[in-house]
């Protein structure tokens, strides 16, 4: 709570300054009109375009989830036919994974922040960045077209030979939609890698990069090396449907299990595309709200790379019952368990960062704490399903469904919401209501657990996934799950309302409302189009907080308490700017 006073003072300073000076030109008011958005090359505007698109797809995917939970409220398959139910869970999976979770943090927060965190004016290839948004929407519209024509019923995994030979739904169109949007994510990953390598400001060494950038670097490697494989795989599925013959066709000796290998070679690492950026967000939030440097910075950074590398070596754990050799299954089981090591390192280091920190319980930290707890549960159940004996028992049951929702929703989505709340003042220049935002963080956490904890039990009792009817004795837990989903849905609607409200009516945010030492907070809120008025020179790490003995660039006072005469720079820590002594002359 010690942070409340400096923040309030900042705001007062800010208001006074704003009354005296004409309104600042920033990226939001530099240009007006629809074309200034549709043809923008500004990474910050493209991030907002992405935010709009993925919010629409999240709502669409959420509607499918509502229908699924409504159906499962009663044991009988009475709301929709089994055929419609197949389409519901398939479209829920496809839309949520390919059109929400994979682009969620990288394309919005990553797009917005990475150039600012490396001290650049933009990404290395702004036109490719805009192209990636258009490709994403073309792929998305194709997917929307298939939804309007009845959707796809193969499951989001497109297993052959059902998808290639027997399914009568619009599998080809859906595969092409994912193929096209895959290129949008490849372009984003490529842009990040080149930007992080080639666009860093003078003095910003690899050892000074914020952990958010490190985690996006690891994510980009996975995107760039994994996505092309799923692209060619889905292209082969589409070709097999069009030509009625292809390499997965058992009639000519094709092996459907080969499809599973090629599909999971990408689709398992895709989980790390979703969760690694969230880990980066949590690292930033934990450091800022504990006012301490991240414990074991180097280890946390390397753990991101380790997760990315190990992620490519574990795909076979999806195929323990698909017919692979016992030796392969053993190796994949062992490697899968090894992923727990770098993941646990991160969890322990975040905890150690919070230990004896001066903690401010603001909304972003609530989400980050939620992430740490839920991700730990998802990760530990992940070790369970990596164990061969247990996996054969719980394979294709609600245990697995609960496990991956703890990672994808409890992990990736909590990180996205936390990051959105953390950087919202930077993105919009406005603050959101504290009460409502903290309440909704609590609602999301509670609702999530009520939804998915019962599913662990259901799965262990043997309820298979992908069925619209179940034995009557499983109804209590299913009703609990559906009720929790209602609460969870409420927790998503409240932020949508107050965040939109805050864009017009929210209190104006100072440049650094959280008192963070992060580089992105050194510029104004919202930032100017070119991010910094002058190329900054960096001579310290990203977590220069006062209690950081032995950390280069550690400060003598809390960043928010620094006296600074110039407009909007009150929150900027020293060490960021030419000379680097007590000011931000580069901004």
């Amino acid at each position: 709570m010690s942070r409340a006073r400096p923040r309030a003072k900042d705001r007062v300073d800010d208001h006074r300054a704003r009354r005296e000076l004409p309104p600042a030109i920033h990226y939001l008011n530099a240009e007006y009109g629809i074309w200034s958005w549709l043809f923008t090359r500004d990474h910050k505007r493209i991030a907002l375009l992405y935010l709009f698109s993925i919010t629409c797809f999240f709502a669409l995917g959420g509607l499918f989830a509502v229908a699924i939970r409504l159906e499962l409220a009663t044991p009988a398959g009475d709301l929709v036919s089994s055929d419609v139910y197949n389409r519901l869970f398939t479209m829920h999976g496809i839309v949520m994974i390919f059109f929400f979770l994979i682009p969620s943090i990288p394309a919005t927060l990553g797009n917005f922040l990475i150039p600012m965190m490396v001290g650049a004016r933009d990404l290395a290839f702004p036109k490719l960045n805009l192209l990636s948004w258009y490709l994403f929407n073309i792929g998305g519209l194709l997917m929307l077209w298939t939804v309007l024509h009845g959707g796809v019923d193969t499951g989001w995994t497109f297993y052959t030979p059902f998808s290639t030979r027997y399914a009568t739904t619009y599998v080809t169109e859906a595969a092409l939609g994912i193929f096209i949007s895959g290129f949008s994510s490849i372009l984003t990953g490529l842009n990040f890698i080149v930007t992080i390598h080639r666009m860093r400001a003078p003095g910003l060494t690899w050892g000074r990069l914020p952990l958010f950038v490190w985690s996006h670097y690891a994510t980009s490697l996975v995107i760039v090396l994994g996505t092309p494989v799923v692209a060619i795989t889905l292209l082969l599925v589409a070709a097999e449907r069009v030509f009625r013959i292809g390499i997965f066709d058992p009639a000519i000796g094709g092996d459907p299990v080969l499809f599973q290998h090629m599909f999971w070679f990408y689709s398992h690492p895709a989980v790390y595309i979703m969760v690694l950026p969230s880990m980066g967000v949590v690292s930033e939030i934990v450091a800022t709200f504990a006012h301490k440097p991240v414990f074991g910075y180097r280890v946390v950074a390397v753990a991101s790379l380790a997760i990315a590398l190990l992620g490519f070596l574990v795909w076979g754990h999806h195929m323990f019952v698909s017919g692979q050799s016992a030796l392969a299954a053993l190796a994949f089981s062992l490697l899968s368990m090894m992923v727990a090591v770098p993941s646990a390192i991160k969890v322990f280091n975040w905890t150690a960062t919070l230990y004896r920190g001066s903690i401010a319980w603001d909304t972003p930290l609530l989400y980050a704490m939620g992430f740490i707890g839920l991700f730990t549960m998802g990760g530990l159940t992940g070790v369970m399903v990596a164990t061969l004996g247990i996996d054969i028992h719980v394979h294709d049951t609600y245990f697995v469904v609960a496990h991956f929702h703890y990672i994808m929703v409890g992990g990736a989505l909590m990180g996205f919401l936390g990051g959105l709340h953390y950087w919202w003042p930077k993105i919009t220049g406005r603050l959101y209501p504290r009460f409502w935002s903290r309440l909704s963080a609590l609602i999301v956490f509670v609702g999530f657990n009520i939804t998915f904890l019962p599913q662990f039990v259901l799965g262990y009792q043997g309820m298979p996934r992908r069925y619209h009817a179940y034995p009557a004795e499983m109804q209590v837990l299913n009703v609990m799950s559906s009720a929790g989903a209602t609460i969870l849905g409420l927790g998503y609607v409240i932020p949508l309302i107050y965040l939109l409200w805050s864009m017009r009516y929210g209190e104006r945010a100072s440049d650094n409302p959280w008192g963070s030492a992060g580089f992105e907070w050194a510029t104004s809120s919202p930032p100017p189009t070119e991010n910094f008025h002058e190329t900054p020179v960096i001579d310290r790490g990203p977590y220069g907080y006062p209690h950081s003995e032995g950390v280069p660039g550690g400060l003598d006072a809390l960043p928010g308490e620094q006296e600074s005469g110039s407009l909007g720079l009150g929150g900027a820590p020293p060490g960021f700017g030419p000379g680097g002594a007590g000011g931000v002359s580069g901004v």
Partner: protein
Amino acid sequence: MIAGWWRAFRDYRPGLAHQFESAEQQREAASLGMWVFLATEVLFFGGLLAAYTVYRILYFDAFKAASHELDVAIGAVNTGVLLTSSLTMACAVWGTQTGRRRAAGLFLLATFVLGAVFLGLKFYEYWHKAEQHLVPGHGFHAAQLGLPEGRWGEAQMFFCLYFGLTGLHALHMLAGMAFVLGAVLPSFVGWFRPRNHGFIEGLGLYWHFVDIVWVFLFPLLYLVSRHE
């Protein structure tokens, strides 16, 4: 009006994009970007090559018989044509780097022509395979392979992979040729200069990559146990 457009085209000089500090940074970014893109391409072809490996091990006899139906002479000539086009492409990059813009333009044109020769020969091969009923599907007829009819499926698998791999390669050729042809005139009028040759350098990297893919495809598809 056309003369005005021509003058604007001729006098246009691509400058430094606003996000870069220096021409060197811009060139390095373009070069790294192309390398990363080529890494994605390796994985893109890699998926199909992995499938090829699996089926070649499973159905080696059929792959050998089917491979012997391919025209190794045309394949060899095409390999030579493509390697020569890589030479002309390298010369175009050299010409740009050393300020010989007319030479660079001519080398680009030569690269395009050699690419077209390659695709022409490839098209002839495809047409010939269709005549031999070796295109996978209902019309597939492989009596000449010496395989029992029950194992024609395995030969079809080979031809699925043959058409898939070479077709994907041909699509990459087409895309590369479009960019090469598009760069000829700008090269003549001097858009690319020794200090600003990132585009031509990237195009060269791409062209060499497509060439290398063929260097792998030729032995994998045409030379299965040819020594026997």
